[in-house]
Protein backbone atom coordinates (compact mmCIF):
# COMPACT_ATOMS: atom_id res chain seq x y z
CA UNK A 1 0.00 0.00 0.00
CA UNK A 2 1.24 3.49 -0.81
CA UNK A 3 0.62 6.60 1.29
CA UNK A 4 -2.36 7.76 -0.76
CA UNK A 5 -4.12 4.43 -0.22
CA UNK A 6 -3.20 4.43 3.45
CA UNK A 7 -4.72 7.90 3.89
CA UNK A 8 -8.08 6.63 2.70
CA UNK A 9 -7.94 3.39 4.69
CA UNK A 10 -7.03 5.29 7.86
CA UNK A 11 -10.66 6.36 8.05
CA UNK A 12 -12.06 2.85 7.73
CA UNK A 13 -9.48 1.75 10.31
CA UNK A 14 -10.48 4.49 12.75
CA UNK A 15 -14.12 3.48 12.31
CA UNK A 16 -13.40 -0.19 12.97
CA UNK A 17 -14.46 -1.09 9.44
CA UNK A 18 -11.16 -2.45 8.13
CA UNK A 19 -10.51 -6.19 7.93
CA UNK A 20 -7.72 -7.78 9.96
CA UNK A 21 -5.24 -8.28 7.11
CA UNK A 22 -5.45 -4.66 5.93
CA UNK A 23 -5.38 -3.38 9.51
CA UNK A 24 -2.14 -5.24 10.11
CA UNK A 25 -0.55 -3.87 6.97
CA UNK A 26 -1.74 -0.38 7.84
CA UNK A 27 -0.35 -0.52 11.36
CA UNK A 28 2.99 -1.73 10.00
CA UNK A 29 3.05 1.23 7.61
CA UNK A 30 2.28 3.70 10.41
CA UNK A 31 5.35 2.54 12.32
CA UNK A 32 7.62 3.49 9.44
CA UNK A 33 5.91 6.56 7.95
CA UNK A 34 5.88 9.66 10.15
CA UNK A 35 3.58 11.64 7.83
CA UNK A 36 0.86 8.99 7.84
CA UNK A 37 1.26 8.48 11.58
CA UNK A 38 0.72 12.22 12.13
CA UNK A 39 -2.33 12.08 9.90
CA UNK A 40 -3.66 9.19 11.97
CA UNK A 41 -3.14 11.12 15.17
CA UNK A 42 -4.96 14.15 13.82
CA UNK A 43 -7.81 11.89 12.73
CA UNK A 44 -8.09 10.37 16.18
CA UNK A 45 -8.13 13.77 17.84
CA UNK A 46 -10.83 14.92 15.41
CA UNK A 47 -12.93 11.87 16.26
CA UNK A 48 -12.48 12.46 19.97
CA UNK A 49 -13.40 16.14 19.59
CA UNK A 50 -16.55 15.24 17.63
CA UNK A 51 -17.63 12.61 20.12
CA UNK A 52 -16.91 14.65 23.23
CA UNK A 53 -18.04 17.95 21.76
CA UNK A 54 -21.64 17.73 22.98
CA UNK A 55 -22.79 18.18 19.39
CA UNK A 56 -25.99 16.10 19.67
CA UNK A 57 -29.30 17.92 19.63
CA UNK A 58 -32.03 16.53 21.87
CA UNK A 59 -35.66 16.35 20.83
CA UNK A 60 -37.61 19.24 22.37
CA UNK A 61 -40.22 18.33 24.99
CA UNK A 62 -42.99 19.74 22.78
CA UNK A 63 -42.20 17.12 20.11
CA UNK A 64 -42.14 14.30 22.66
CA UNK A 65 -45.45 15.49 24.08
CA UNK A 66 -47.12 15.76 20.67
CA UNK A 67 -46.08 12.27 19.64
CA UNK A 68 -47.08 10.68 22.94
CA UNK A 69 -50.48 12.34 22.56
CA UNK A 70 -50.65 11.02 18.98
CA UNK A 71 -50.10 7.48 20.29
CA UNK A 72 -52.58 7.88 23.16
CA UNK A 73 -55.25 9.10 20.76
CA UNK A 74 -54.68 6.08 18.53
CA UNK A 75 -55.05 3.72 21.49
CA UNK A 76 -58.22 5.56 22.56
CA UNK A 77 -59.89 5.02 19.18
CA UNK A 78 -59.27 1.31 19.33
CA UNK A 79 -60.55 0.57 22.84
CA UNK A 80 -63.58 -1.72 22.72
CA UNK A 81 -66.86 0.14 23.00
CA UNK A 82 -69.37 -1.75 25.10
CA UNK A 83 -72.24 0.67 24.91
CA UNK A 84 -73.09 3.58 22.74
CA UNK A 85 -71.57 6.67 24.22
CA UNK A 86 -72.31 9.84 22.25
CA UNK A 87 -69.55 11.77 23.95
CA UNK A 88 -66.99 9.19 22.92
CA UNK A 89 -68.34 9.17 19.39
CA UNK A 90 -67.85 12.92 19.14
CA UNK A 91 -64.35 12.55 20.50
CA UNK A 92 -63.54 9.94 17.89
CA UNK A 93 -65.05 11.99 15.08
CA UNK A 94 -63.13 15.07 16.21
CA UNK A 95 -59.92 13.10 16.40
CA UNK A 96 -60.57 11.51 13.02
CA UNK A 97 -61.12 14.90 11.43
CA UNK A 98 -57.97 16.31 13.03
CA UNK A 99 -55.92 13.28 12.05
CA UNK A 100 -57.26 13.48 8.51
CA UNK A 101 -56.49 17.19 8.26
CA UNK A 102 -52.99 16.56 9.64
CA UNK A 103 -52.40 13.72 7.23
CA UNK A 104 -53.51 15.87 4.30
CA UNK A 105 -51.19 18.58 5.52
CA UNK A 106 -48.28 16.16 5.73
CA UNK A 107 -49.00 14.20 2.60
CA UNK A 108 -49.96 17.02 0.26
CA UNK A 109 -47.62 19.92 0.78
CA UNK A 110 -48.71 22.87 -1.33
CA UNK A 111 -47.01 23.08 -4.68
CA UNK A 112 -46.65 19.35 -5.20
CA UNK A 113 -49.32 17.89 -7.41
CA UNK A 114 -51.32 14.90 -6.22
CA UNK A 115 -49.91 12.63 -8.93
CA UNK A 116 -46.39 13.75 -8.22
CA UNK A 117 -46.74 12.98 -4.54
CA UNK A 118 -48.41 9.66 -5.34
CA UNK A 119 -45.54 8.55 -7.61
CA UNK A 120 -42.98 9.59 -4.99
CA UNK A 121 -44.86 7.62 -2.36
CA UNK A 122 -45.04 4.60 -4.66
CA UNK A 123 -41.29 4.68 -5.28
CA UNK A 124 -40.62 5.14 -1.55
CA UNK A 125 -42.86 2.18 -0.75
CA UNK A 126 -41.09 0.09 -3.37
CA UNK A 127 -37.65 0.95 -1.98
CA UNK A 128 -38.81 0.35 1.58
CA UNK A 129 -40.41 -2.97 0.70
CA UNK A 130 -37.02 -4.20 -0.51
CA UNK A 131 -34.96 -2.54 2.24
CA UNK A 132 -36.92 -3.61 5.26
CA UNK A 133 -37.17 -7.16 3.94
CA UNK A 134 -40.88 -6.78 4.00
CA UNK A 135 -41.61 -7.55 0.38
CA UNK A 136 -44.55 -9.86 0.99
CA UNK A 137 -47.11 -10.61 3.70
CA UNK A 138 -48.36 -13.63 1.80
CA UNK A 139 -45.79 -15.58 -0.18
CA UNK A 140 -47.27 -17.62 -2.97
CA UNK A 141 -47.10 -17.97 -6.70
CA UNK A 142 -50.68 -19.21 -6.60
CA UNK A 143 -53.14 -16.48 -7.47
CA UNK A 144 -55.87 -18.44 -5.65
CA UNK A 145 -53.90 -18.09 -2.41
CA UNK A 146 -52.93 -14.46 -2.81
CA UNK A 147 -56.32 -13.10 -3.84
CA UNK A 148 -58.33 -14.44 -0.86
CA UNK A 149 -55.60 -13.21 1.48
CA UNK A 150 -56.68 -9.64 0.72
CA UNK A 151 -60.31 -10.42 1.73
CA UNK A 152 -61.28 -8.30 4.71
CA UNK A 153 -58.01 -6.38 4.63
CA UNK A 154 -59.06 -4.01 1.89
CA UNK A 155 -62.43 -2.85 0.62
CA UNK A 156 -62.02 -4.08 -2.95
CA UNK A 157 -60.93 -7.21 -4.78
CA UNK A 158 -57.70 -6.79 -6.72
CA UNK A 159 -57.26 -8.81 -9.87
CA UNK A 160 -54.46 -11.25 -8.96
CA UNK A 161 -52.92 -13.20 -11.83
CA UNK A 162 -49.69 -15.10 -12.21
CA UNK A 163 -47.76 -14.20 -15.38
CA UNK A 164 -45.02 -16.82 -15.08
CA UNK A 165 -45.66 -17.94 -18.64
CA UNK A 166 -44.92 -14.40 -19.85
CA UNK A 167 -41.76 -14.14 -17.70
CA UNK A 168 -43.28 -12.39 -14.69
CA UNK A 169 -43.89 -14.98 -11.95
CA UNK A 170 -46.09 -13.86 -9.05
CA UNK A 171 -44.11 -13.83 -5.77
CA UNK A 172 -46.81 -12.77 -3.35
CA UNK A 173 -48.82 -9.90 -1.97
CA UNK A 174 -48.67 -7.29 0.74
CA UNK A 175 -50.83 -4.64 2.28
CA UNK A 176 -49.47 -1.12 1.79
CA UNK A 177 -50.57 2.49 2.12
CA UNK A 178 -50.64 4.88 -0.80
CA UNK A 179 -52.62 7.98 -1.58
CA UNK A 180 -53.88 8.01 2.05
CA UNK A 181 -55.54 4.60 1.75
CA UNK A 182 -54.82 0.91 2.11
CA UNK A 183 -53.83 -0.61 -1.23
CA UNK A 184 -52.92 -4.07 -2.43
CA UNK A 185 -49.28 -4.50 -3.38
CA UNK A 186 -48.69 -7.46 -5.71
CA UNK A 187 -45.09 -8.52 -6.08
CA UNK A 188 -43.75 -9.99 -9.32
CA UNK A 189 -40.27 -10.97 -10.38
CA UNK A 190 -38.66 -10.59 -13.77
CA UNK A 191 -35.20 -12.17 -13.96
CA UNK A 192 -33.50 -10.61 -10.95
CA UNK A 193 -35.77 -7.60 -10.68
CA UNK A 194 -38.66 -7.21 -8.29
CA UNK A 195 -41.75 -5.34 -9.32
CA UNK A 196 -44.30 -3.85 -6.96
CA UNK A 197 -47.75 -3.47 -8.50
CA UNK A 198 -49.92 -1.25 -6.31
CA UNK A 199 -53.64 -1.67 -6.93
CA UNK A 200 -56.62 0.32 -5.66
CA UNK A 201 -60.04 1.38 -7.00
CA UNK A 202 -60.13 4.10 -9.66
CA UNK A 203 -63.00 6.36 -10.60
CA UNK A 204 -61.90 6.98 -14.17
CA UNK A 205 -59.78 5.14 -16.68
CA UNK A 206 -56.35 6.61 -17.36
CA UNK A 207 -53.85 5.90 -20.11
CA UNK A 208 -50.48 4.48 -18.97
CA UNK A 209 -48.06 7.20 -17.96
CA UNK A 210 -44.40 6.12 -17.91
CA UNK A 211 -41.87 7.98 -15.81
CA UNK A 212 -38.43 7.57 -14.28
CA UNK A 213 -38.16 8.54 -10.60
CA UNK A 214 -34.91 8.35 -8.63
CA UNK A 215 -33.70 5.73 -11.10
CA UNK A 216 -36.85 3.62 -10.87
CA UNK A 217 -39.31 3.07 -13.68
CA UNK A 218 -42.88 3.95 -12.71
CA UNK A 219 -46.03 3.28 -14.72
CA UNK A 220 -49.31 4.75 -13.59
CA UNK A 221 -52.59 3.73 -15.26
CA UNK A 222 -56.23 2.93 -14.56
CA UNK A 223 -58.43 0.43 -16.30
CA UNK A 224 -61.55 -1.61 -15.53
CA UNK A 225 -62.20 0.39 -12.36
CA UNK A 226 -58.77 -0.27 -10.85
CA UNK A 227 -55.78 1.98 -10.53
CA UNK A 228 -52.39 0.31 -11.15
CA UNK A 229 -49.05 1.79 -10.21
CA UNK A 230 -46.00 -0.32 -11.15
CA UNK A 231 -42.53 0.39 -9.75
CA UNK A 232 -39.30 -1.44 -10.52
CA UNK A 233 -35.62 -0.97 -11.25
CA UNK A 234 -35.96 -2.77 -14.57
CA UNK A 235 -36.36 -1.06 -17.94
CA UNK A 236 -39.58 0.69 -18.94
CA UNK A 237 -40.23 -1.57 -21.94
CA UNK A 238 -40.45 -4.72 -19.80
CA UNK A 239 -42.40 -2.88 -17.13
CA UNK A 240 -44.84 -1.66 -19.76
CA UNK A 241 -45.35 -5.26 -20.88
CA UNK A 242 -46.36 -6.19 -17.33
CA UNK A 243 -48.61 -3.13 -17.11
CA UNK A 244 -50.35 -4.37 -20.26
CA UNK A 245 -50.83 -7.82 -18.74
CA UNK A 246 -52.20 -6.42 -15.47
CA UNK A 247 -54.66 -4.17 -17.21
CA UNK A 248 -56.16 -6.95 -19.35
Amino acid at each position, binding site marked *: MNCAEIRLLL*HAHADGELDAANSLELERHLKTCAACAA*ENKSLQSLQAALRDGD*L*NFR*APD*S*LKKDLRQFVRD*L*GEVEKPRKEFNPQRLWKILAFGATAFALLMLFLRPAGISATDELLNEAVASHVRSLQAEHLTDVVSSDQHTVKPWFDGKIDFAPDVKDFAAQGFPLIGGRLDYLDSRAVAALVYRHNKHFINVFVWPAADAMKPEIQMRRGYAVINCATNGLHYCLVSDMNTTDLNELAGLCGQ
Partner: protein
Amino acid sequence: MSANEAEQFERIVLPHLDAAYNLARWLAGNDHDAEDIAQEACVRAFRFIGGHRGGDARAWLLAIVRNTAFSWLKKNRPHAVVSIDDDELAQIEDQTVPAGAFHRADAGALRAALEALPLEFREAIVLRELEGLSYKEIAEVAEVPVGTVMSRIARARRQLQNHFSQKEGEK
Protein backbone atom coordinates in the same frame (compact mmCIF):
# COMPACT_ATOMS: atom_id res chain seq x y z
CA MET B 1 -54.93 1.65 12.89
CA SER B 2 -54.83 -0.82 15.71
CA ALA B 3 -53.86 -0.50 19.36
CA ASN B 4 -51.14 -2.97 18.50
CA GLU B 5 -49.67 -0.53 16.00
CA ALA B 6 -49.81 2.23 18.60
CA GLU B 7 -47.95 -0.04 20.99
CA GLN B 8 -45.36 -0.85 18.29
CA PHE B 9 -44.94 2.84 17.59
CA GLU B 10 -44.32 3.52 21.27
CA ARG B 11 -41.83 0.67 21.48
CA ILE B 12 -39.99 1.11 18.16
CA VAL B 13 -40.10 4.81 17.30
CA LEU B 14 -40.30 6.84 20.50
CA PRO B 15 -37.05 5.56 22.11
CA HIS B 16 -35.14 6.92 19.10
CA LEU B 17 -36.76 10.32 19.02
CA ASP B 18 -33.55 12.09 20.11
CA ALA B 19 -31.60 10.43 17.30
CA ALA B 20 -34.35 11.31 14.81
CA TYR B 21 -34.40 14.92 15.94
CA ASN B 22 -30.59 15.14 15.97
CA LEU B 23 -30.36 14.08 12.31
CA ALA B 24 -33.26 16.35 11.30
CA ARG B 25 -31.65 19.27 13.17
CA TRP B 26 -28.25 18.81 11.52
CA LEU B 27 -29.83 18.52 8.07
CA ALA B 28 -32.31 21.38 8.48
CA GLY B 29 -30.00 23.76 10.34
CA ASN B 30 -32.61 25.26 12.69
CA ASP B 31 -34.94 24.14 15.50
CA HIS B 32 -38.26 25.02 13.90
CA ASP B 33 -37.77 23.18 10.61
CA ALA B 34 -36.10 20.26 12.41
CA GLU B 35 -39.15 19.81 14.63
CA ASP B 36 -41.48 19.83 11.60
CA ILE B 37 -39.32 17.30 9.77
CA ALA B 38 -38.94 15.00 12.79
CA GLN B 39 -42.67 15.07 13.44
CA GLU B 40 -43.55 14.35 9.82
CA ALA B 41 -40.98 11.53 9.77
CA CYS B 42 -42.50 9.95 12.90
CA VAL B 43 -45.98 10.05 11.39
CA ARG B 44 -44.55 8.41 8.27
CA ALA B 45 -42.80 5.86 10.47
CA PHE B 46 -46.19 5.07 11.99
CA ARG B 47 -47.62 4.42 8.52
CA PHE B 48 -44.73 2.08 7.73
CA ILE B 49 -44.58 0.42 11.14
CA GLY B 50 -45.89 -2.87 9.74
CA GLY B 51 -42.87 -2.83 7.43
CA HIS B 52 -40.43 -2.89 10.31
CA ARG B 53 -39.40 -6.50 10.80
CA GLY B 54 -36.78 -6.66 13.51
CA GLY B 55 -33.43 -5.17 12.59
CA ASP B 56 -32.10 -1.97 14.06
CA ALA B 57 -35.06 0.30 14.76
CA ARG B 58 -32.86 3.39 15.01
CA ALA B 59 -31.32 2.94 11.55
CA TRP B 60 -34.79 2.20 10.18
CA LEU B 61 -36.21 5.40 11.67
CA LEU B 62 -33.19 7.46 10.60
CA ALA B 63 -33.71 6.33 6.99
CA ILE B 64 -37.25 7.71 7.17
CA VAL B 65 -36.02 10.96 8.75
CA ARG B 66 -33.39 11.25 6.03
CA ASN B 67 -35.92 10.83 3.22
CA THR B 68 -38.34 13.24 4.84
CA ALA B 69 -35.61 15.83 5.35
CA PHE B 70 -34.32 15.59 1.78
CA SER B 71 -37.85 15.88 0.32
CA TRP B 72 -38.45 18.88 2.55
CA LEU B 73 -35.16 20.52 1.61
CA LYS B 74 -35.68 19.90 -2.12
CA LYS B 75 -39.03 21.64 -1.89
CA ASN B 76 -38.14 24.48 0.46
CA ARG B 77 -34.44 25.06 -0.13
CA PRO B 78 -33.58 23.62 -3.55
CA HIS B 79 -30.22 25.43 -3.55
CA ALA B 80 -29.15 23.49 -0.42
CA VAL B 81 -29.51 20.14 -2.18
CA VAL B 82 -26.74 20.11 -4.74
CA SER B 83 -25.60 16.63 -5.56
CA ILE B 84 -21.94 16.19 -4.82
CA ASP B 85 -19.41 14.48 -7.02
CA ASP B 86 -19.22 10.99 -5.52
CA ASP B 87 -16.16 9.68 -7.29
CA GLU B 88 -14.96 6.97 -4.95
CA LEU B 89 -11.52 7.00 -6.48
CA ALA B 90 -11.11 10.74 -6.07
CA GLN B 91 -8.05 11.54 -4.05
CA ILE B 92 -8.73 13.15 -0.73
CA GLU B 93 -8.32 16.84 -1.41
CA ASP B 94 -5.30 18.82 -0.49
CA GLN B 95 -2.97 16.34 1.12
CA THR B 96 -0.19 18.86 1.31
CA VAL B 97 -1.47 20.72 4.35
CA PRO B 98 -0.51 18.73 7.42
CA ALA B 99 -3.48 18.25 9.71
CA GLY B 100 -3.18 19.43 13.27
CA ALA B 101 -4.63 18.07 16.47
CA PHE B 102 -8.09 18.94 17.76
CA HIS B 103 -8.93 19.84 21.29
CA ARG B 104 -12.10 19.69 23.24
CA ALA B 105 -12.06 23.47 23.46
CA ASP B 106 -12.72 23.58 19.71
CA ALA B 107 -16.33 22.38 20.17
CA GLY B 108 -17.97 25.67 19.16
CA ALA B 109 -15.75 26.04 16.12
CA LEU B 110 -16.26 22.37 15.31
CA ARG B 111 -20.03 22.85 15.33
CA ALA B 112 -19.69 25.75 12.88
CA ALA B 113 -17.31 23.75 10.65
CA LEU B 114 -19.74 20.83 10.61
CA GLU B 115 -22.59 23.16 9.65
CA ALA B 116 -20.52 24.44 6.74
CA LEU B 117 -20.02 20.97 5.23
CA PRO B 118 -21.99 19.95 2.11
CA LEU B 119 -25.25 18.23 3.07
CA GLU B 120 -24.23 14.65 2.19
CA PHE B 121 -20.89 15.00 3.98
CA ARG B 122 -22.54 16.44 7.07
CA GLU B 123 -25.08 13.63 7.05
CA ALA B 124 -22.34 10.97 6.84
CA ILE B 125 -20.34 12.50 9.71
CA VAL B 126 -23.41 12.96 11.94
CA LEU B 127 -24.52 9.36 11.38
CA ARG B 128 -21.00 8.00 11.95
CA GLU B 129 -19.59 10.14 14.75
CA LEU B 130 -22.68 11.34 16.60
CA GLU B 131 -25.00 8.37 16.11
CA GLY B 132 -22.33 5.66 15.85
CA LEU B 133 -23.84 3.91 12.82
CA SER B 134 -21.74 1.42 10.86
CA TYR B 135 -20.83 2.09 7.21
CA LYS B 136 -23.40 -0.49 6.16
CA GLU B 137 -26.15 1.18 8.18
CA ILE B 138 -25.21 4.60 6.80
CA ALA B 139 -25.27 3.14 3.29
CA GLU B 140 -28.83 1.97 3.90
CA VAL B 141 -29.94 5.26 5.42
CA ALA B 142 -28.39 7.38 2.65
CA GLU B 143 -29.22 4.87 -0.12
CA VAL B 144 -25.66 4.81 -1.51
CA PRO B 145 -23.01 2.05 -1.75
CA VAL B 146 -20.70 1.42 1.23
CA GLY B 147 -17.73 2.63 -0.84
CA THR B 148 -19.43 5.99 -1.28
CA VAL B 149 -20.04 6.21 2.46
CA MET B 150 -16.35 5.62 3.14
CA SER B 151 -15.32 8.21 0.58
CA ARG B 152 -17.81 10.79 1.92
CA ILE B 153 -16.61 10.30 5.50
CA ALA B 154 -12.95 10.59 4.49
CA ARG B 155 -13.55 13.73 2.43
CA ALA B 156 -15.75 15.27 5.11
CA ARG B 157 -13.09 14.75 7.77
CA ARG B 158 -10.46 16.17 5.43
CA GLN B 159 -12.56 19.30 5.00
CA LEU B 160 -12.90 19.64 8.77
CA GLN B 161 -9.16 19.19 9.19
CA ASN B 162 -8.42 21.77 6.50
CA HIS B 163 -10.86 24.20 8.07
CA PHE B 164 -8.81 24.10 11.24
CA SER B 165 -5.40 24.04 9.55
CA GLN B 166 -6.30 27.30 7.80
CA LYS B 167 -7.37 28.82 11.12
CA GLU B 168 -4.04 27.79 12.62
CA GLY B 169 -2.29 29.46 9.70
CA GLU B 170 -4.15 32.73 10.23
CA LYS B 171 -3.04 33.01 13.86
